[in-house]
């Protein structure tokens, strides 16, 4: 290389970097919200901090064993997972929800809250910018690094780690306690527990149905024993036909053929009506060579669980009710009043937030 190309190349390099820098600066200037002058939102944070000092902080150990100092009078909550957002809404604490993730879609109002990114890769500074008193995380979708980093910054993070349906209810009660909504929590948990007990009363004595719970079709991934889904299946009168140590074991279809589950339980991956899903999913399974050999597919024993089934949130109870009805129709055919129980999971979900709907559900359960 002679002298010329080097200097020319150097000039281009400098140009490229400055162009990038200029683009970057322009982009930042455009996206920056210009409200309230400098140090936006900081005053509120300081005032909050001053108010908090008057009362004692609560030292708790979260469900992963981290020690967390929870400030008293939590006013600003950021949730890092859809199930936690749903829980906050179910507790009627949506006014205190300062932000959630871009995955939070239940209830629909959660989509309008400020987002801090995806559950796996939230922006730590977006969380800081919302100056939360408490961040709620869960082991089922968040990375432990996120909680560690926030705790380093002095932000209280409570990580829940439910492995059973009861564990999830306990977790809801504990989170309600943290934000001084213990009574709401107790009421909600009691309601949900009562609905679980009602399901149990109907199907508790029936033999468990052996099912294959399909988390993912290709590659085939099912649930291990130590997950809340496996436990939710038991509450629905079913049992995973696959016994595995891992939480999300990958299976060969041969193993499924060998085990011959009585039912295949699918989770919906599109938002069409359940009935349409079921028939099209069944068609799809029948088209696959190995799946054809399954008795469950042959006899049409394919059930689509509610999309709430893979979320450890209050809506899970509705999903359990729905699956229990599908797997044990005979137990639900006649209630004491002689009426068929109707109502899907979303109706059940709304009962948690609105009183009117609650009455409706009580009447339909009778």
């Amino acid at each position: 290389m002679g002298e010329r190309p080097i200097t020319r190349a150097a000039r281009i390099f400098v140009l490229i970097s400055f162009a990038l820098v200029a683009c970057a600066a322009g982009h930042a200037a455009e996206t920056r919200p210009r409200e309230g002058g400098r140090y936006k939102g900081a005053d509120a944070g300081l005032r909050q901090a001053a108010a908090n000092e008057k009362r004692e902080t609560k030292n708790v150990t979260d469900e992963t064993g981290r020690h967390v100092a929870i400030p008293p009078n939590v006013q600003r909550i950021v949730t890092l997972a859809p199930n936690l957002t749903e829980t906050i809404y179910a507790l009627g604490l949506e006014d205190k929800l300062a932000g959630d993730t871009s995955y939070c879609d239940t209830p629909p109002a959660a989509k309008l809250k400020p987002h801090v990114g995806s559950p796996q890769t939230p922006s730590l500074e977006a969380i800081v910018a919302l100056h939360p008193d408490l961040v709620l995380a869960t082991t089922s979708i968040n990375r432990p690094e996120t909680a560690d980093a926030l705790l380093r910054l002095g932000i209280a993070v409570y990580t829940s780690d439910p492995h059973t349906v009861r564990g999830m209810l306990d977790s809801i009660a504990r989170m309600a306690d943290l934000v001084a909504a213990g009574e709401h929590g107790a009421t909600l948990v009691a309601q949900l527990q009562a609905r679980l007990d009602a399901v149990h009363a109907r199907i508790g004595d029936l033999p468990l149905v052996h099912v294959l719970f399909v988390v993912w079709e290709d590659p085939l991934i099912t649930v291990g024993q130590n997950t809340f889904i496996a436990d939710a299946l038991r509450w629905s009168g079913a049992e995973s036909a696959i016994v595995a140590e891992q939480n999300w074991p990958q299976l060969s279809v041969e193993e499924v053929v060998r085990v011959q589950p009585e039912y295949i339980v699918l989770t919906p991956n599109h938002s069409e009506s359940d009935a349409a899903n079921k028939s099209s999913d069944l068609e799809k399974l029948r088209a696959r060579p190995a799946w054809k050999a399954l008795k469950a597919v042959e006899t049409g024993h394919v059930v689509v669980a509610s999309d709430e089934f893979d979320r450890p949130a209050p809506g899970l109870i509705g999903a359990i009710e729905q699956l229990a009805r599908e797997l044990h129709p005979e137990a639900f055919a006649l209630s004491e009043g002689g009426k068929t129980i109707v109502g899907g999971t979303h109706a059940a979900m709304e009962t948690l937030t609105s009183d009117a709907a609650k009455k409706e559900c009580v009447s339909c359960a009778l």
Partner: protein
Amino acid sequence: MRPLTPQRILWTCAGLFGVLFVVVVISLRMGAYPISVRDIVDTLYKAAAGRRDEVPVEFWQVVFGLRLPRIALGILVGASLSTAGAGFQALLRNPLADPYVLGVSSGAALGAIISLIAAPHVVGAIQIAAFIGAASTIAGVYFLGRRGGQLDSPTLLLAGIVAASFLSAIIMFLLTMVTGSELRSIAFWLMGDLTAPPPVTNVLGWLGFLFFVFIVAAGAMYTTSSDLNLILTGEQEARHLGVNVNRVKFVVYIAASVLTGLAVSVSGAIGYVGLLIPHVMRMFFGTDYRMLIPTAAIGGAIAIVLADTLARTVVAPTELPVGAMTALAGAPVFIYLMRRRMR
């Protein structure tokens, strides 16, 4: 070509430092939390004057708790990977060599995965295990790569590639055994990730320690730069000119491996930087290792800080893994430069 004088090296490095400084300021300014340049200057000034209580809590957290440590880590990782890449390219006399070619990243990844399985919730366990994994791989490949008691470049390259695939196979096997949350951590780690918090509470001390190791290893490599120039023209010729080829190779091997292990253990396997930046710097500033080693170090730092800034902002508030960003942005830039040079 103009003779390479110390002044020219210094001026080039000063220019690159200028670019790095601009990039750092931009990076400090950008992100999900809006900060103007004036706020940054104000905050830094108050911090320097010891008037911390005048700075709002969020500003302090974002600037000193998140962005500055991350930028510093990015500079360190970029400089380490790029310097290591330059070293391996000379040592193996292969333009495709990068910091991971000798299996160091696979060894580090294996260590990280084992620590995730054995001690999932211990902060810092990943970094330590990754460094142990990298160090054992370095030692293993070194002994496999010798022939007749000497480090033989083709043998070393083969030993490294075999070790890398073998370790990757073990990783694939172990990955089927880990549960959900650990799998998520490891996936990010394999893509390269600067967001993980440092394993100790004293962030400044931690960064200082890492920079100290970097200076020692990169400095050791720099002492061999004149000899590396000769070795690149041919080992026999270098021997005839009185270069102790074995000693030089040993120093470069150890220094480059330590730099790779350092970078990988704190940030996971960030790809492309170690391969591309030394080549880009060669295009700009020539192939002389006395110039290449310092420019590659600063260039690597610039590249990572830029890539990480983009990773933080492109789909904000969600963050991309920085490793994806380096590959995504690095490849087209490199192809463009390569085509220009051929014309």
